[in-house]
């Protein structure tokens, strides 16, 4: 094996005082060799991104490297001055970030921004810069490179923008490429393309790639070597094959155990049960009014959609961003007014209900949102927010409080939680409180709108388990909206696949996954990362001393 391009030894990065731990990264050592993809895996707060920023010398001002060495092409870059380091960045080492939407300067064309790499590091003439840039755009498979060259970032999609960032990173053929969660913000199909691109790059360019991710499926898809981090420390590292299939550290095992399995844990037959929710021809059309030089037009965010939900059933609704699944939910709940169709709960139509009667109708159907930070009012105590619903529906406050205490226990939190404020809870805890809040009014149907998407895998797993448990215990029906096929597979009985505002496929989970009918579904399934990896059953692994 070739000499490593990057060799990090005993790196420690201090956190500002007053945090919950003294170091962001502690005693980290790792190596990246040419032509190798090293994945750093960990949950949020594990210090995995800090490592990449330290290497790029892009640490926020508040974080300081206190010890260790980062050898890059034989030089300790921690001893370099800012301008010397700037000469390396973009030239010898390059980086790709998580959030493509904001990674480009909105004021300049993307061509301009790619050319800036050449401008900063070479004295290449203008024409050559442009030619090289066009070539790069082709290499990252952008359609119509000359047009893209003159485009502004806001005119491109997220996936396209990420390719631009990749093009920038590749411009000068760096020997080290660092990618920090490069596909997390992207749709699964785009993710697959980008990951494929990484695999190619390793071969064509011979660069060493350090890829930071939280997703073991991504690791399985591309990694040569894996480094697992927890709370700033490396707990395990080794080849991908070793770590993925025979994890030794309990934490690694816990993480792998939490990876969704792409198949239902338990499937139930619900066909004979009564229908609790019937949606018929629900649609939402936005009218863009006529304005100067443009006629009025209509945009169908949701084409007429119909489905049924039976008692005790979990119906998964799967789709990428922009597929219309969120519009469907919001129109169904009358959070936005639908343009047509009916939504029957208990035989009463929500879609046509008067504002005044809407309140009582909604009692039967409650929702848990995606963002655990935005769905609780930061200025009200948990108790106050929990009793809101029952009190609005006429229950006495003390009665409601009693119920709140009960529900808090059911979602496995302590009663004191009721007197606290949302900022005093972690994301997973908040999501459980949101579930409790929804259950306070004893709904028949619970809608979970990407309810676990923002959570770390281990927390995600717990919340999913809690949801399933509650569903069974309370006889709830559930609508489970997600972009993640694996999660949908794990929890749903039936699944609906949406694309471009339309339901393209539906059926029992096993049928849709094993025998997809629609091209789009097939494409989605094919794009799922880590398909070559059979997640090991941790319980069968030999025990290790923690």
């Amino acid at each position: 094996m070739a000499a490593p391009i990057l060799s990090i030894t005993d790196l420690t990065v201090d956190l500002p005082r007053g945090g919950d731990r003294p170091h962001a990264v502690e005693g980290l050592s790792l190596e990246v060799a040419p032509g190798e993809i090293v994945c750093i895996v960990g949950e949020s707060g594990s210090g995995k991104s800090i490592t990449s920023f330290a290497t790029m010398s892009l640490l926020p001002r508040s974080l300081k490297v206190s010890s260790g060495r980062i050898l890059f092409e034989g030089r300790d870059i921690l001893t370099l001055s800012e301008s010397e380091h700037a000469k390396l960045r973009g030239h010898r080492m390059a980086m790709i970030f998580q959030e493509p939407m904001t990674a480009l300067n909105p004021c300049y064309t993307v061509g301009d921004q790619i050319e800036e790499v050449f401008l900063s590091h070479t004295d290449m003439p203008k024409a050559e810069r442009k030619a090289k840039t066009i070539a790069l755009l082709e290499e990252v498979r952008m359609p119509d490179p000359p047009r893209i060259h003159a485009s502004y970032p806001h005119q491109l999609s997220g996936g396209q923008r990420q390719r631009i960032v990749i093009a920038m990173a590749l411009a000068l053929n760096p020997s080290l490429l660092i990618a920090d969660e490069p596909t997390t913000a992207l749709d699964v199909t785009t993710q697959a393309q980008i990951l494929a691109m990484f695999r190619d790059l390793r071969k064509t360019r011979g660069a060493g790639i350090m890829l930071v991710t939280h997703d073991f499926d991504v690791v399985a898809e591309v990694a040569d070597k894996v480094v697992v981090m927890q709370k700033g420390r490396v707990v395990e590292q080794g080849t991908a094959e070793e770590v993925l299939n025979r994890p030794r550290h309990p934490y690694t095992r816990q993480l792998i155990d939490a990876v969704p399995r792409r198949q239902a844990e338990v499937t139930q037959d619900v066909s004979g049960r009564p229908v609790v929710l019937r949606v018929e021809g629900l649609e939402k059309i936005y009218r863009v009014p006529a304005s100067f030089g443009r006629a009025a037009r209509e945009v169908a965010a949701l084409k007429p959609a119909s489905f049924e939900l039976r008692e005790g059933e979990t119906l998964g609704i799967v789709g990428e961003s922009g597929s219309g699944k969120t519009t469907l939910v919001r129109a169904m709940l009358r959070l936005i007014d639908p343009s047509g169709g009916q939504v029957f709960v208990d035989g009463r139509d929500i879609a046509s209900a008067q504002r005044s009667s809407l309140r009582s109708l909604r009692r039967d159907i409650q929702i848990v949102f995606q963002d655990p930070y935005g769905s609780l009012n930061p200025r009200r105590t948990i108790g106050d927010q929990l009793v809101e619903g029952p009190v609005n529906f006429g229950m006495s406050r003390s009665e409601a409080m009693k119920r709140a205490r009960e529900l808090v226990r059911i979602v496995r939190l302590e009663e004191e939680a009721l007197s606290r404020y949302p900022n005093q809870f972690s994301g997973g805890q908040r999501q459980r409180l949101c579930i409790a809040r929804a259950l306070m009014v004893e709904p028949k149907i619970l809608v979970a709108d990407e309810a676990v998407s923002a959570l770390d895998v281990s927390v995600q797993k717990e919340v999913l388990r809690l949801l399933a448990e509650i569903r069974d215990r309370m006889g709830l029906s559930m609508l489970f909206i997600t972009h993640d096929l694996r999660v949908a597979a794990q929890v749903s009985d039936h699944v609906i696949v949406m694309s471009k505002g339309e339901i393209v496929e539906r059926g029992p989970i096993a049928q849709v996954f094993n025998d997809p009918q629609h091209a789009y579904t097939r494409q989605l399934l094919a794009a799922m990362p880590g398909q070559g990896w059979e997640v090991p059953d941790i319980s069968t692994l030999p025990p290790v001393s923690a």
Partner: protein
Amino acid sequence: MTMTRTLPLSPRRQMAQRALRHRGLILSGAVLLAIVLIAILAPVIAPHDPYRQSLVTRLRPPVWLGGTWQYPLGTDALGRDMLSRLIYGARVSLMIGLISAGVSMVIGTVLGISAGYFGGRVDSFVQYLINVRLAMPVILVALAAVSLLGGSLLIVTMVMGLLLWDRFAVVLRAATMQVRSMEYIAAADMLGATQPRILWKDVLPNVMSHLIVILTLEMAHAIILEAGLSFLGLGVQPPTPSWGLMISEGKELLLFDSWLIMIPGVALFLLVFSINMFGDGIRDVTAPEGRN
């Protein structure tokens, strides 16, 4: 899972803690408190009647310029005790600030929150109102209005109140729009809360910090504006001891008895400065993310 680790403090306690650590806030708060106390206790602490004239003891200098302790800050052109007028003036200036800013707050908040919450046509209409209001030159319109309607304390404060609501509306509109998109609003809606209840329990508390900050800014603005109107001779009417009017009265002798304008000027500066500092402090404390 249990909650054994140390918990973050509740928002209120966090704020209190940040407030206690914020030197500017504490300092300006202390000065403001002192001015408020002086205003409240004016009848007790003022050595003389602020309206009591004495034509034989006009223009006595303050102690440090050779005056006597009978009139520590000297007397004005009508022989009234400057210290007593300054003390009573605190009442008037604070009242001008509070009432004007209060009136604008009500107007601006109602408009801003309605625009931000309901959006659509309500929003377009409010934006139009804001634009109209901003297009009108404040001083000019205030002067014209006061000159046409006469210059009592009530009219001056009402005119300013009707003119200074724009910032409330602009900021609260933006803040409400942000809050409106939060999922806890949708959740409250789902849980059967009525719109007034959502506005009151979910929107208002979350835009409150903006509201308080703007309130302080506009108080300061109103006090300065009234001083400007008084300077042009169209502010509150004499013999009301407003600090702006005192500056205006003292300006005649600016070149000779400069303390006549310096003393109320410094007092006015201190008040406005403290209010602004206090507002900045509150912003830092309630929304630390807004600072950096």
